[in-house]
């Protein structure tokens, strides 16, 4: 009898791996819609890496880009729950679709030491960033690019001393040039 138990079949579960997902969402821009969306993540004990929201060209329609780290099953379930919200118009995981990501950051760098300023300017030029405000002891730099570029810039200027960093979070759109019929 024991052998029979041993030979029991076990239901196979699909394997999943944790990775970064970029989710694009279009919503009716009503009061409270953002809290419905963030609530889905919070209620599952799930941290959002970044979330951006803004108006589109259509009236009362906003576009939200969410970046999360998670395994396929959890992300799939969250996407289904997002679709279930009454005010969402479209939800799509664009992680594996050719797409463009951009982020903007405003970075205050300590430049009281004058020798630092040249080095900062050099980096600003290399990264095609801009100095948008200057005070006796700081430069404020504006930089756009994908997350990796901004992370790289911040790592390079960190040794000079950072006073503040403000990032928008990731914006993403599917590439028109390589669009695979579906649009968001």
């Amino acid at each position, binding site marked *: *009898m024991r052998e*029979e*138990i041993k*030979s*029991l*079949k*076990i*239901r*196979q*579960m*699909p394997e999943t791996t944790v990775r970064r997902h970029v989710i694009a969402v279009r*919503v*009716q821009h009503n*009061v*409270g819609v953002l*809290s*419905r969306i963030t*609530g889905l993540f919070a*209620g599952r004990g799930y941290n959002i890496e970044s979330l951006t929201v803004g108006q589109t060209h259509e009236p009362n329609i906003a576009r939200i880009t969410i970046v999360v780290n998670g395994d396929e*099953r959890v992300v*799939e*379930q969250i996407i*289904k*729950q997002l*679709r*279930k*919200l*009454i*005010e*969402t*118009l*479209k939800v799509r995981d664009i992680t594996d679709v050719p797409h463009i990501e951009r982020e903007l950051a405003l970075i205050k760098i300590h430049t009281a030491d004058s020798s630092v300023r040249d080095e900062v300017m050099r980096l600003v030029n290399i990264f095609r960033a801009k100095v948008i405000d200057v005070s006796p002891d700081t430069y404020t730099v504006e930089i756009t690019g994908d997350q990796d570029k901004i992370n790289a810039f911040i790592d390079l200027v960190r040794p000079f001393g950072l006073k503040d960093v403000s990032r928008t979070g990731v914006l993403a759109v599917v590439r028109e040039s390589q669009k695979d019929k579906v649009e968001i």
Partner: protein
Amino acid sequence: MPKKRGADIVVDVLIEEKVDTVFGLPGGAIMEVYDALFNAPFKNILTRHELAACHMADGYARATGKVGVVMATSGPGATNLVTGLATAHMDSVPLVAITGQVPTHYIGTDAFQEADVTGITRPVTKHNFLVTDIKDLALILREAFYIARTGRPGPVLVDIPKDITQQVYDYKMPTLKDVEEALPGYKPHYEGNIAQIKKAAKLIRQAKRPILYVGGGAVAAEAQEELVKLAEMAKIPVTTTLMGKGAFPEDHPLALHMLGMHGTYYANMAVYNSDLLIAVGSRFDDRVTGKIDEFAPEAKIIHIDIDPASISKTIHVDVPIVGDVKKVLQKLIKELERKPVEWDEARESWIKLIEKWKIEHPLTYDRKSKIIKPEYVVEEIYNITKGEAIITAGVGQHQMWAAMFYKYKFPRQFINSGGLGTMGFGFPAAVGAKIARPDKEVIAIEGDGSFLMNIQDIATAVQYRVPVKVAILNNEFLGMVRQWQELFYDSRYSSVCLSTQPDFVKLAESFGAVGLRATKPSEVKKVLKEAMSINDRPVIMDFAVDREENVLPMVPAGKSYREMILHPGEKGEAETMYLVG
């Protein structure tokens, strides 16, 4: 249209939505609406607690399929609804809750009786609204009804600040088209993908050991006729979940009754050994599956559900079909009529094997007991009502006995809190069901613990002369917790003894209801007979039952069906279950 007060617009929309009963309790912020209700052409039931009002509206909705309506004032009135909304949300019950809110200019100031009600209820409703402009009021209310009853049904809350109920506006009743245009992102999927349906039909033809596993979605979709047809034409045995009770007649030869934690031996054995599981409006709840990777380990799974988010949530399915259960079953039946299932020996022996399990291990209890067995009371309720009554239950042991020992024949016949497991649900739900279905006998099978949680609303039932019956299976314990303590905590009965309790007979009488009691098995029938003869007041029956009776069989939480606990002395293959295929 003449100019109207916000409160009168609320009443107009309720009339437009053909509401015939509203349950609730007034207070400061919703007084204007109650003023408008004074002359309204529908019933307005004053309850003694907002939670009871919510459960009554819920019972009303479950008994009819119509949208239940509940009203409460701001702050504590609204927060008292939360458990009721969560109960309805988990079991997909269509409700509209209308709550008063402090006047617009006081919102966010910690005003008297202010609470962020849309914030608090967001995770426990299908959707909710805060009205900020009287121009939107009628449309939002109509959207609320539309959202509540379509797709996967659920509760919707509309929070209306007091000043908006007092303002006057020249409004026009929004049409269904206006409602649909206001909800561009809400498009429930009803039809079901035909390619997937063909795949399902193919699996059904190939299967040797198929089982239908039917849940509350089949009740909501009113799909009994289709289910019976499918089961009979392909000769597939049917097991139902707690929420699916009545979706398939339990006196049918193919009925296997409930599966899962307190499922029958034969239903669980059949599911465990099946090679094809056809899930119909069910959602693979943990109380059904037990240990998920040993749930029907050999079976391919077809899952029919209106909610895409229910599919592959806890278990991977082979053929998902998103759509209305009734419509999908109709198409599936057509497909199987086009090319029927070929009957062979393997399928014949599957039916025979299940028949054997059914004969060897029926639901059972000690019928010779000198103490009243709770199962006996439920069986006698079944006998005296000829299986025709609507039964409601609270949550706990009595709920399981009510599910196991009454044979349900028609959908919406068994009303209980399956998903959330809300104690105190049974009695108010029975009041709501009886108001909705005065033609039916409605009996709340309650536990002594559960019943006390909404005892105050006996007054409501007496006031409106609602002749519901309550059968308390009184074991002076929080019985289900006690059972778990006995089985899994070495009988350390921590905080479960309820022997300090009111005299339920005197209590009933003090409310103006009738109280009856049975303390011996020989008194049970007499008490039931007397109760059934009373039809102008509620009747509370107190049955002093065996204090330490356990609900069996039982699959302990998170365990495999193999580890099913049977009645003492009952021998099963459960412990050494092996696959028959």
